[in-house]
C-alpha cells in the first residue's frame, strides 16, 4: 500500500474516537443510575471525569488538524476526518449533559421523591440514548449509513418520553409552589437527556456524510410515536 503511515494514523484516529464514544456511552447509563438511586459518589465521579472527556476531545481534534496539514486528505479520507472532528465534538457535548444531570443529582439529593413514573421513564430515556450511541459508533466504525439513518427513529422515542415527563413535571409544579424548585431540577435532567439523544442523531448525520458524501439533516418519518424498534425498550409499557 502506498500510504501505510497515513492509514495507521487514520486507524488510530478511529480507535481513539470509538474509545471516547464508549466512555460517554457507559456514563449515560451510570448517570441515570446515579440520579435514580441518589448515588452521590457516582455523580461526583462523573462530574470529575468530564475534564478527561474534554481533554481527549481536544487531543483527537489536534490529531485531525495535524493530518489535514501534513497529509492533505481527500475524498473519503477527508470526509472521515471531518466526521471525527464533528463526532468528538458531539461526544464532548453529550458528556456535558451527563455532567449536568450528575450535578442536578447532587442538588436533588436523597430527600426528595421523584414523580411516580419519573424513575421508570427517565431510565428508559437513558437506556435508549445509550443504545443509540452504541449503534451510532458501530455505524461509524463499520461505515453503515443505513444503521445511522435508522437511529432517527429511536430519537423519536426519547422525544416522546421527554414530552410525557415534561407534562407530568409541569403538572407537579402547578400543584404547589413548594414543588417548583424540585420540578425545575427534574426538568433539567430530562432536557439534558433529550438533548443528548439529539446529539447522537447529529453524529449519525455525519456518519451518513462520511459514507455517502452527502450531508443532510434527518427528517423524522414519524409524526406520532409508534411502536419502538427491537432492543432493550419494553414496548408494552409505551402507550
Amino acid at each position, binding site marked *: 500500500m502506498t*500510504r501505510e503511515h*497515513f492509514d495507521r494514523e487514520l486507524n488510530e484516529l478511529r480507535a481513539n474516537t470509538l474509545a471516547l464514544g464508549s466512555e460517554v456511552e457507559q456514563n449515560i447509563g451510570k448517570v441515570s443510575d446515579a440520579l435514580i438511586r441518589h448515588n452521590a459518589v457516582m455523580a461526583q465521579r462523573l462530574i470529575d471525569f468530564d475534564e478527561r472527556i474534554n481533554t481527549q476531545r481536544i487531543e483527537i481534534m489536534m490529531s485531525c488538524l495535524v493530518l489535514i496539514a501534513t497529509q*492533505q486528505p*481527500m*475524498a473519503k*479520507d477527508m470526509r472521515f476526518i471531518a466526521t471525527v472532528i464533528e463526532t468528538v465534538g458531539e461526544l464532548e457535548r453529550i458528556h456535558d449533559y451527563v455532567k449536568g444531570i450528575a450535578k442536578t443529582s447532587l442538588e436533588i439529593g436523597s430527600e426528595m421523591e421523584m414523580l411516580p413514573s419519573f424513575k421508570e421513564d427517565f431510565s428508559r430515556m437513558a437506556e435508549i440514548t445509550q443504545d443509540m450511541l452504541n449503534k451510532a459508533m458501530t455505524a461509524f466504525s463499520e461505515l453503515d449509513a443505513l444503521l445511522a439513518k435508522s437511529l432517527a427513529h429511536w430519537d423519536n422515542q426519547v422525544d416522546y418520553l421527554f414530552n410525557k415527563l415534561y407534562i407530568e413535571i409541569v403538572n407537579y409544579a402547578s400543584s404547589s409552589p413548594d414543588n417548583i424548585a424540585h420540578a425545575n431540577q427534574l426538568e433539567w435532567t430530562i432536557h439534558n437527556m433529550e438533548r443528548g439523544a439529539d446529539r447522537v442523531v447529529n453524529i449519525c448525520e455525519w456518519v451518513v456524510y462520511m459514507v455517502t458524501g452527502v450531508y443532510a439533516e434527518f427528517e423524522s418519518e414519524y409524526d406520532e410515536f409508534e411502536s419502538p424498534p427491537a432492543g432493550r425498550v419494553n414496548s408494552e409499557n409505551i402507550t
Partner: protein
Amino acid sequence: MNDFNLSSNGHLAIEAKDLSCYYGDFRAVKNVDLDIKQHAITALIGPSGCGKSTVLRAFNRMNDLIPVAHAEGEILFHGANIYAEGVDPVEIRRRIGMVFQKPNPFPKSIYDNVAWGAKINGFKGSKQEMDQLVEESLRDAAIWDEVKDKLDQSGLSLSGGQQQRLCIARTIAVKPEIILMDEPASALDPISTLRIEELIQELKKNYTIVIVTHNMQQAARASDFTAFFNMDNDRAGYLVEYNVTQTIFTSPAKELTDQYITGRFG
C-alpha cells in the same frame, strides 16, 4: 472552410467527441468525450502514461508535429472540428495557445519575447501600440512590475518562475481564447508555483484554461473542473470521471478516482 467565429454552444470552449489519439498503430487515448467550459480552469489529472498530455496537445493539434501521430473523433472549437480538412493548425495554435512544463523563453530580450509572437501573427500597429501590447501582456502575466525597467535584458536572465510568467505573457500577446498548460509549475519552487496558480485564477476572467498537472493538491486548489484519466489494460488512456473539482476531491463517484486522489494507487 470552417468558420470558428460562430459558437454553437455559447458556454463550451472545446468539445472533444469520441476522441482517440494514436502514435502510429498504438492507441494512446481512447474514446474521450470531454466538454471544456469557457472561462473556467479545467485540470487533467491521472497517473503517468494515462494520456492526459496527449489529450491536451490534441486540443491545439500540437500532436501534428509528431509525424506518426494522428487523431480520430472530433474536437470542436466554436462548434467546428479543428481536425477537419482545410483547417490551418497554425491559426488554431494562435487561438489555442500553449505553455509548457519547462519555461522556454526565446534567447531574446524580454520585450522581444512578448512582441515576437504578435509580429509573426501579422501585428500591424505602430511602435507605440506594440509597446502597449507588450506592457498589457506582461501586466496580465503578473510580471510587469518586475521587468518594466529591464525590458531590453535577455529573457534568459530571469528566474525560473519569472521565465514561466514571461512565456505566459508571450502566449497572451497573440490574444488566444484558450490557454493550454502542460504542468506549468512542476519545474518551479513552491512560491513560484503558488504565484502561477494565483495568475491562473486571474487569467480565467479573460481566457479558458486547461491544465495538466501531476500535483493533485494543485488541481484541487487551482481548478474549477477536474478530469481524471487512467490507463486501461490495453495501455490506452481513457476518461474515468469528470466533474466540478470540489466534488471530485470530496465525493468522487468512481472508486478508482477515490483511490487515485487518496494516493492509494498511481
